[in-house]
């Protein structure tokens, strides 16, 4: 590790006592690298068995890696906590400016413990931590306003991250998110509710340091090589041009685009909400995370007239990506781009996970359609596919929770369906609502077995799309490939490299970059470390009661044909058994 890069410094903050201290954790960073690897070890230390996710003892951990601030695209921050949504491992990644800000403030990780008696936001400027009274920010309708106020109150423009929660987090919606830089998120698994439970409204972090490198010549050459690969590669061009919504038409054509609560894998109005249509008619600005030249963030400019006065308009900038379009448009049968954008804008103001929100509303719509719930439960709403105005109202009820039904919805579909029924179409895996891929068995196995129950854990959709149409794989072989991918991704997310750059950071390039950062890992060492980190995560999951043996599989995935045809239950079960036994032996 480089002598002065301060990677191994961990900032500990106690919200109860309003105190902070720094410890050198070279023991963790030298072995587990950073990001997810160091994050899981800190979580094991700080979060004892059966900790209440919304109690004062649940820690919030942020971790970055050795390449952050040194090489491009090492620009993610990993958050670790116990999830109030699943009651198990909570891990969420965000870009924006967060990773560079944490590293430039002089830390490799931040651990936040305890619970404040009054609403506060934290201002971390280099070596100093300030506890600011956030009483006046609590209860604000829009998360955008909260961001603006903190931005104007604090120094460090251009060198800072501003994380904040909205009303969803304050009201402990179990899938409330934390927003950074207005449009990026620690979206999944409810970090926003953990903030809310601690009366923590936001965190601003800023700093400006140098990272002294020994081999300066090789550093500059390797940097240029990685940078050039990032700006020239076709993969990166895809993310830059249309962005992730390029996938809408592609998945729709294959029949893998979950539609109306996965009653189908094809949306007849996909053109309307495609990346192509948004780019042509709405795209207003493209943005990048800090220290990433790709710029995959796409903002739509939505111009709306006021009804009470002629020639009076407002123009809102609204971020769009593949997953929110799946969750808030195709999953809800919304065909109007403006309808999707308005619902998305509400999601952003409340700071709630777009993916879980869409899947929850989709379940509620089908439940009402089937008569499992009525207007008595929905507070007078008639949820109908495509009716975005009613969905915006329903979303406000999820956040405000005016009755027991919306209280149940605010805890996700696993919970709501355990009370009201409709489990067979409650589209959650390991308690987490599904991502937008009905591509085949790989995707669903990934959601089931991935440590975060995310499509990004093992990218099973990629095997469904690229391999399964040509070659059939045995259940065991599919399981083996998923596990291998998830283990390698532990290394990328310990280095906090954006998964979009996984093709650029090959094991060889990664090893060389790590050498510059003062780490001597061989490719074999890295693979072994990935396996160890993955096992540590599963150790935590099992400690908190998770088992692949009794995981619920929503029946619908077997009923709706996927992009590669019907998914066989027996095949999924065989693959699950294989993955389960492999993980058990690794633990």
């Amino acid at each position, binding site marked *: 590790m480089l002598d002065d890069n301060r990677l191994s410094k961990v900032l500990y903050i106690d919200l109860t006592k309003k105190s902070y201290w720094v410890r050198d954790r070279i023991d963790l960073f030298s072995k587990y690298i950073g990001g997810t690897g160091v994050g899981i070890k800190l979580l094991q230390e700080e979060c004892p068995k059966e900790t209440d996710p919304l109690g004062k003892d649940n820690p919030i951990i942020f971790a970055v890696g050795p390449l952050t*601030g040194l090489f491009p695209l090492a620009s993610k921050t990993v958050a670790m906590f116990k999830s109030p949504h699943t009651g198990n491992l909570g891990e969420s990644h965000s870009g924006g400016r967060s990773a560079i800000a944490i590293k430039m403030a002089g830390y490799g990780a931040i651990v936040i413990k305890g619970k404040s008696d009054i609403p506060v936001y934290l201002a971390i400027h280099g070596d100093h931590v300030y506890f600011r009274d956030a009483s006046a920010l609590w209860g604000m309708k829009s998360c955008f306003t909260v961001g603006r106020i903190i*931005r104007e109150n604090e120094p460090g423009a251009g060198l800072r991250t501003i994380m904040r929660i909205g009303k969803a987090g304050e009201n402990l919606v179990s899938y409330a998110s934390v927003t950074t830089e207005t449009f990026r998120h620690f979206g999944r698994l409810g970090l926003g509710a953990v903030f809310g439970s601690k009366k923590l409204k936001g965190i601003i972090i800023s700093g400006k340091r*140098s*990272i002294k490198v020994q081999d300066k010549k090789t*550093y*500059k050459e390797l940097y240029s090589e990685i940078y050039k690969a990032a700006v020239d590669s076709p993969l990166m061009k895809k993310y830059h041009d249309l962005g992730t919504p390029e996938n809408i038409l592609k998945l729709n054509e294959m029949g893998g685009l979950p539609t109306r609560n996965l009653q189908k894998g094809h949306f007849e109005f996909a053109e309307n909400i495609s990346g192509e249509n948004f780019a042509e008619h709405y795209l207003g*600005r*493209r943005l990048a995370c800090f220290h990433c030249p790709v*710029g995959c963030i796409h903002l739509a400019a939505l111009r709306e007239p006021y009804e009470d006065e002629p020639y009076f308009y407002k123009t809102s900038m609204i971020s769009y990506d593949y997953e929110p379009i799946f969750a808030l448009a195709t999953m809800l049968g919304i065909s109007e781009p403006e309808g999707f954008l308005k619902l998305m804008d509400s999601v952003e103001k409340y700071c709630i996970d777009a993916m879980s929100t869409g899947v929850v509303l989709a379940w509620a719509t089908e439940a009402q359609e089937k008569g499992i719930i009525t207007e008595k439960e929905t507070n007078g709403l008639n949820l109908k596919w495509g009716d975005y105005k009613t969905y915006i109202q329903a979303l406000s009820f999820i956040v405000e929770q005016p009755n027991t039904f919306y209280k149940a919805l605010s805890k996700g579909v696993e919970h709501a369906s355990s009370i009201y029924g409709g489990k067979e179409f409650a589209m959650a895996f390991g308690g987490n609502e599904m991502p937008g891929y009905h591509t085949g068995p790989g995707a669903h196995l990934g959601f089931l077995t991935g440590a975060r129950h995310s499509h990004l854990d093992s990218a099973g959709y990629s095997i469904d799309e690229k391999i399964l149409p040509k070659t059939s794989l045995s259940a065991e072989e599919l399981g083996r490939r998923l596990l291998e991918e998830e283990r390698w991704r532990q290394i990328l997310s310990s280095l906090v490299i954006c998964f979009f750059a996984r093709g650029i950071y090959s094991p060889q390039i990664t090893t060389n970059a790590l050498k510059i950062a003062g780490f001597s890992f061989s490719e074999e060492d890295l693979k072994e470390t990935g396996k160890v980190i993955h096992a540590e995560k599963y150790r935590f999951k099992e400690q908190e009661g998770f088992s692949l043996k009794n995981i619920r599989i929503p029946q619908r995935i077997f009923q709706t044909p996927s992009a590669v045809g019907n998914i066989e239950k027996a095949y999924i079960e065989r693959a699950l058994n294989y993955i389960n036994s492999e993980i058990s032996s690794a633990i």
Partner: protein
Amino acid sequence: MRISVYDPQRCIGCGSCMFACARRAGDGGLSNTAIAVRSSGGISKGFSVIVCRACTDPPCSKVCPTNALIPRKGGGVILNPTKCIGCENCREACPIGAVFWNEEINKPVICVQCGYCVEFCPHGVLKMEDSGVAAHVG
């Protein structure tokens, strides 16, 4: 030659220019960068790019009490760090905020108009241009 902020509307805020500037000397991080990118009041409004515009009559040089900032042929200044006492007069005198500060050594970071940042701008925000042409300050 000098650096021109040719079109800040094309800026995506990636900060590659800032890291490039700091990396000239072979180190990572941002202490030693002489260019800044910051949002124009929230990132939905885009970015401002701030860099020395190589004044022909530089105000920073006029207020230096130790003659550490010498006007450079073709505009801008050259810093003699051994003379600099870190008083920050130059920083306050620059109306566009282009005298940056290295807190680690308490000295200004002065753009030398080398153009290394331009090589790492992925979207043509920055360009090199002949001195004497009116610069477009973003």
